[in-house]
């Protein structure tokens, strides 16, 4: 031991090369050491969820700044850096991510892109939302402008993903989550999009409520065009289902007995309430026009064209607005077709026969009330009568063979009178017409079949020269 004291008293000269070694070691090793510690600290934070994480190393001391999403996460991150081998001190400059109140998230769509605004709760949520947006809106640019903040409601991700699916159904518009309130606005891409979105919103995660759903659908349009040149009625647009499609096709067949019907209607949901009744009424009005176009757009009925005579134009304008279901708007731009050239009695008779062969004046069963489907045919008969002002016309009523003969006789007379009344209301002088009922005494077909009875129930116009 004594030797050590003696020897150690002579160890001092070695301190000079040691000092040189120290200076060189400090000069050479500082930067590599700092680089190595930066890499190790960063690796230690690999599995920690942080925002704006920054690590600066001076010597063996680490300055660590970051925004954490929970107090536990923040502590855990600091501990991870402190536990990194070689780290001497950690200057903890971490803090919690700011809390958003209210927590607002927006997905806004225009023609070219979807922009995601507002805040997401975690980087993973943000990534998931952006991925969901790309998946739901493939082919559309997704612009991510989301920030990260605390305070998201529970199941926020699921709500956002569900809303992105709804934004995909919009042509333009936006979906907003404000805390647990959801609001949507904009224009649906397709007919029925509004209904599809409303249905999907029923599956929102628990706790979320729909504060506003102002999504508008494109107008639900049905068009009908009556072309007297080709003698066709063209139907296009949408109907809600096959039942209503069949009902409208059948109504068109009854009202447009003389025209060929081209049916281009397609089925789609999203029809406004009272759709079938409104379109049927509007088709009735169109059937009374010589030429015309009907556009039913949402709850607006726009009818334009030429009526066959002045009174008909007035009646169409008045009845369309009156007969549409409540909440529907009518816009009738009905003018009157120029009067056709007068014809002589034989042509007049021929025209009456032609029209009454192609179409039939319908009445309610066992009644003298003229069925509304016959208005178009009656208007054509009025027009023909106007073209031969100098002839007298006998209106003859016939029934089928069913029922009591006296009842049939009376019914045929009343039906002939009802037709005469229609003609007089149209502005024709009453003294040009006479009525007669034949009951079932002059059948033109067998009364044993329904088809035969249908033919026997008829009104005939017989032209008599004026005295």
């Amino acid at each position: 031991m004594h030797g050590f004291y003696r020897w150690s008293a002579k160890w001092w000269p070695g301190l000079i090369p040691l000092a040189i070694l120290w200076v060189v070691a400090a000069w050479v090793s500082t930067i590599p050491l700092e680089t190595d510690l930066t890499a190790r600290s960063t690796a230690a934070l690999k599995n920690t969820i942080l925002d704006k994480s920054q690590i600066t190393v001076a010597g063996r001391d680490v300055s660590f700044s970051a925004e954490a999403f929970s107090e536990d996460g923040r502590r855990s991150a600091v501990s991870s850096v402190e536990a990194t081998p070689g780290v001497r001190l950690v200057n903890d400059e971490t803090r919690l991510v700011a809390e958003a109140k209210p927590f607002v998230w927006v997905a806004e769509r225009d023609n070219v892109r979807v922009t995601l605004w507002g805040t997401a709760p975690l980087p993973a949520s943000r990534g998931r939302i952006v991925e969901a947006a790309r998946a739901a809106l493939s082919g559309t640019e997704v612009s991510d402008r989301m920030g990260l903040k605390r305070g998201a409601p529970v199941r926020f991700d699921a709500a956002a993903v569900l809303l992105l699916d709804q934004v995909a159904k919009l042509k333009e518009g936006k979906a907003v989550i404000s805390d647990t309130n959801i609001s949507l606005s904009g224009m649906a891409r397709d007919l029925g999009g509004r209904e599809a979105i409303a249905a999907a919103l029923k599956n929102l995660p628990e706790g979320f409520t729909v504060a506003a759903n102002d999504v508008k659908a494109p107008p639900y349009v049905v068009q009908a065009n009556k072309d007297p040149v080709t003698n066709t009625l063209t139907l296009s647009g949408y109907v809600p289902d096959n039942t209503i499609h069949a009902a409208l096709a059948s109504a068109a067949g009854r009202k447009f007995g003389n025209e060929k019907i081209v049916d281009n209607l397609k089925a789609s949901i999203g029809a406004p309430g009272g759709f079938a009744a409104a379109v049927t009424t509007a088709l009735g009005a169109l059937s009374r026009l010589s030429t015309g176009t009907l556009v039913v757009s949402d709850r607006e009925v726009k009818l334009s064209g030429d009526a066959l005579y002045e009174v008909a134009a007035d009646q169409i304008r008045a009845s369309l607005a009156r007969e549409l279901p409540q909440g529907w708007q009518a816009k009738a731009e009905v003018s009157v077709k120029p009067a056709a050239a007068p014809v002589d009695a034989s042509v007049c008779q021929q025209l009456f026969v032609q029209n009454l062969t192609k179409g039939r004046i319908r009445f309610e069963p066992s009644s003298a009330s003229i069925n509304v489907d016959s208005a178009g045919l009656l208007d054509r008969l009025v027009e023909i009568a106007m073209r031969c002002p100098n002839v007298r016309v006998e209106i003859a009523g016939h029934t089928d063979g069913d029922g009591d003969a006296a009842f049939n006789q009376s019914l045929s007379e009343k039906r002939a009178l009802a037709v005469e009344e229609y003609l007089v209301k149209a502005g024709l002088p009453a003294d040009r017409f006479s009525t007669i009922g034949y009951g079932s005494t002059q059948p033109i077909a067998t009364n044993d079949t329904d088809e035969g009875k249908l033919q026997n129930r008829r009104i005939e116009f017989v032209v008599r020269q004026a005295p």
Partner: protein
Amino acid sequence: MTYLAMFHWGWLLGAFLIGFCMGWIAVVYRGRSVSRVWIQRLSVIAAVIVGIAIAKVVPGRFGYWLDLGLALFGFYLVGCAIGSWLRDIVVVRQQARAT
């Protein structure tokens, strides 16, 4: 400490070798010795510096350089001790053979 030793093993080995050589020479060196009082004073100063290093009072790069210096100094002292001890054994044997 393990990390420092692994990262700086070359420098520490250098300090150890310098110490070993110094210790080897010190046994037969006839030059000036440091007085016992000064050894005690320097030991106190060294203890204070070690205390400062353990307390991590010196920040950043200066703190690191202090740690590095102390580590090198420690290995130097160990080298000196081993060098002197081995040389002493050699010298004693030579003296025994000479007598």
